[in-house]
């Protein structure tokens, strides 16, 4: 496919703004500091009862942070997203006028389902009662994107990609494609998801929730911990960013997208689809595997996923040839928001020269032939890093980011 991919230097994509809300609280710096300190925020879940489930833990936003995020008339997801986007725009020092033609792509999976669950649960238990249907207005993931576009007056291409856990990584790929092909100069890309009963029940039914805080890449890992949050990146063509003297946080090297066509929930043992996604990202970035120092892994903590990702990494980079960590061990798996939050973490690592650790990794799995940076962040000299996101349905997205000084 790469013969069709002709990108001029002016159309190369840069990241000029970051915004996040995470279990650490509000703000990308708060998020990055939490990761850098290796502070695990997976704790007791308070949003809904967890009686009878395998796990009662999650990476939940502090209640005080949520209260401070604007009006309670909006869904929890909308409030997360607006906060992350407003921070990203401020960070990019972008004139709001630029948004009138900007793209916006926000990935998610659950949308405003938490509020809809409240409505449905109440309706089930009291069929004759009068139940407020206001939550239905923000049930769909697209309604968070619409709310963002409305609040920020964003007038360009708008979409809400749903690739399960790869949703917001795909959103970054979408806006990158829109900029590289010259459709727009600027775009907001990101993702949002909140904890929901549906998701919690689903992973419980699949026996994929770890009763303890998740332990990606550990020999005794037993599954994932769920989390919630939002992250938004401001992406621009390098020409546009340079013309306005914008601060460039990182360059988007390349994005790879592939499908396994294998199984609804399990990766193939040879992880061939993930291999293709990573190789496509490398090819589009005009990089070799040796150029990549760090991988922010999908790293959910499930037995199958971690093993398959390690197989793919070994195939692309060679065993032990890159440093790997899973920030899901610190904040949980934020589902549709994970790709964007992990992109922010990857950019943070490039900026700080510091690789966030994998928490709870007391006994590494010998079948994972990589240094997975246990417990403590590690200083490193790095120019290029990759972030992987893989989702149900066999969806694979790999993103490569470069330090501005390394982009040439």
């Amino acid at each position, binding site marked *: 496919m790469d013969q069709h991919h002709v990108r001029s230097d002016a159309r190369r994509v840069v990241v000029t703004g970051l915004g996040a809300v995470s279990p650490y609280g509000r703000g990308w710096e708060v998020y990055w500091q939490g990761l850098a300190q290796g502070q695990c925020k997976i704790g007791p879940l308070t949003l809904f009862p967890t009686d009878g489930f395998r796990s009662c833990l999650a990476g939940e936003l502090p209640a005080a942070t949520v209260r401070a995020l604007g009006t309670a008339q909006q869904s929890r997801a909308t409030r997360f997203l607006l906060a992350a986007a407003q921070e990203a725009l401020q960070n990019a020092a972008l004139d709001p006028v630029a948004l009138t033609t900007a793209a916006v792509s926000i990935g998610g999976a659950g949308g405003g389902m938490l509020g809809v669950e409240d409505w449905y649960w109440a309706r089930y238990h009291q069929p004759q009662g009068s139940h407020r249907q206001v939550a239905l207005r923000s049930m769909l993931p697209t309604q968070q994107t619409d709310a963002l576009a*409305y609040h920020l007056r964003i007038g360009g291409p708008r979409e809400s990609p749903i690739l399960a856990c790869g949703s917001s990584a795909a959103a970054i790929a979408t806006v990158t494609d829109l900029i590289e092909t010259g459709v727009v100069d600027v775009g907001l890309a990101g993702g949002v998801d909140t904890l929901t009963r*549906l998701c919690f029940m689903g992973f*419980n039914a699949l026996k994929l929730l770890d009763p303890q805080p998740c332990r990606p890449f550990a020999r005794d890992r037993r599954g994932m911990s769920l989390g919630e949050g939002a992250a938004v990146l401001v992406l621009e063509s390098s020409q546009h960013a340079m013309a306005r003297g914008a601060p460039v946080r990182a360059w988007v090297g390349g994005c790879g997208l592939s499908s396994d066509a294998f199984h609804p929930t399990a990766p193939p043992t040879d992880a061939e689809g993930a291999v293709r996604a990573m190789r496509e990202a490398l090819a589009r970035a005009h990089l070799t595997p040796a150029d990549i120092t760090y991988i922010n892994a999908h790293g959910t903590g499930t037995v199958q996923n971690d093993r398959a990702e390690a197989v793919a990494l070994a195939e692309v980079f060679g065993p032990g040839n890159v440093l790997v960590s899973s920030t899901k061990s610190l904040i949980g798996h934020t589902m549709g928001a994970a790709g964007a939050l992990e992109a922010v973490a990857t950019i943070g690592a490039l900026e700080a020269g510091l690789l966030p650790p994998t928490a709870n990794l007391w006994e590494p799995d010998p079948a994972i032939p990589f240094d997975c940076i246990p417990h403590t962040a590690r200083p490193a000299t790095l120019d290029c890093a990759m972030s992987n996101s893989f989702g149900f349905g066999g969806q694979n997205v790999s993103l490569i980011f470069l330090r501005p000084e390394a982009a040439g």
Partner: protein
Amino acid sequence: MVRMPTYRAVITGIGCVSPFGVGGYDLVAEVLKANVSAIQPLQSFPTADLTSCLGAEIPAAYLPKTEEARRWSRLSQMTVLACRQAVAEAGLCDSAALGQAGLVVGSQFGDLRSTEAFCLGFLRKGPLGLSPLLFPSTVMNAMAGTTSIALGLQGPMLTLNQVGVAGELAVARAMLLLRAGRASAVIACGVDELFPRLYETLVQLRVPSPRGHGEEVCRPFDQRHNGPILGEGATAVVLELPEHAQMRGAPMLAEVRSACWGGIPARPGHFPMLPQGQHPVLDQALTEAAVHPADVGMAYLSSCGDPQHDAMELACIADTFGPHGPLLTSVTHLTGEYGGLGTFRVAAAVATVRQGISPTLDYLRQPIRTDVRFAVQPVTPPPAVVLAHGLAPGGVHTAILIGRLHDTSDVAQ
């Protein structure tokens, strides 16, 4: 000077699962030609306690009964069937190109049927009542994932959640995958289904006709409009780079001359206030297609009988094309309204440029505007360029221009 489109693709196959049957291009053409509505009293669930009772349903007999299909949700069955039909018509089956093809699925509601069944398991029996088999279907990309497995599609795969114009968006996004060099062939599919809880809830929210005003009926653009009638279906189109289609000797049905999308900021769930005379998505679509507004012979609009929707979309079209603009038509009075219907509109536009077949708005007695032209008579001769237009609550705006193949010199004949 002859202006050339900025970027183009060809449509090589169509697959349609609808209340009219399951088929490809020929089915779509027959539906338009017959101009008979599939809307009738709902059969699959009771509506006696509701203020609406009509819909356009797909009979169970149309859906596959194979061992493989039994593992899929109804919505996934519809998606797989439509995509398989489109791929077969495009001659992509069993070819290496199929494995590399991309897939974009657009849906408004996804699989709420499975979501409710999954939740009910918990509400009735607690955690032990949860089905691990149902959970994956509650994620909106389940239809795409199932289709990629069933067809062996290993290229980029996206699911787009979008109110109203999910089908159009799938086509536009598929075009971007081609344009960005991510695939040489992409299947774009729009899909949504009717199911009892959704229907009941939408009726309670007064979304469908009659909304407390007279007869329950679907009459887009007519002063007697009082809401849409809900429907369901899946339509897939195969989009390819012209050289790719030519290389493999594929049948080329029509050309996508441009596919643009954007957003007019609007409160979620509401239609935007349109800035008069400024419709950048339509302008961009015409510019990219190198088409003069006067050359667009017909337009399929997304309006479905919602008074606000009808008014806003017509204002947008009137602004752009003026009084001598394209003949305006709709398919929602035939198919019912659902979020993924836009791919059917694109397929209909293909039939119109190829054979001049289009639905007429026979119900139209009192149009809400008189400064535009409605398709009350068959269009002759077949227009060279047809617009598939979409405007959604929340403000997403799409414009896809479908052209006849022999009007383009550099596309394979």
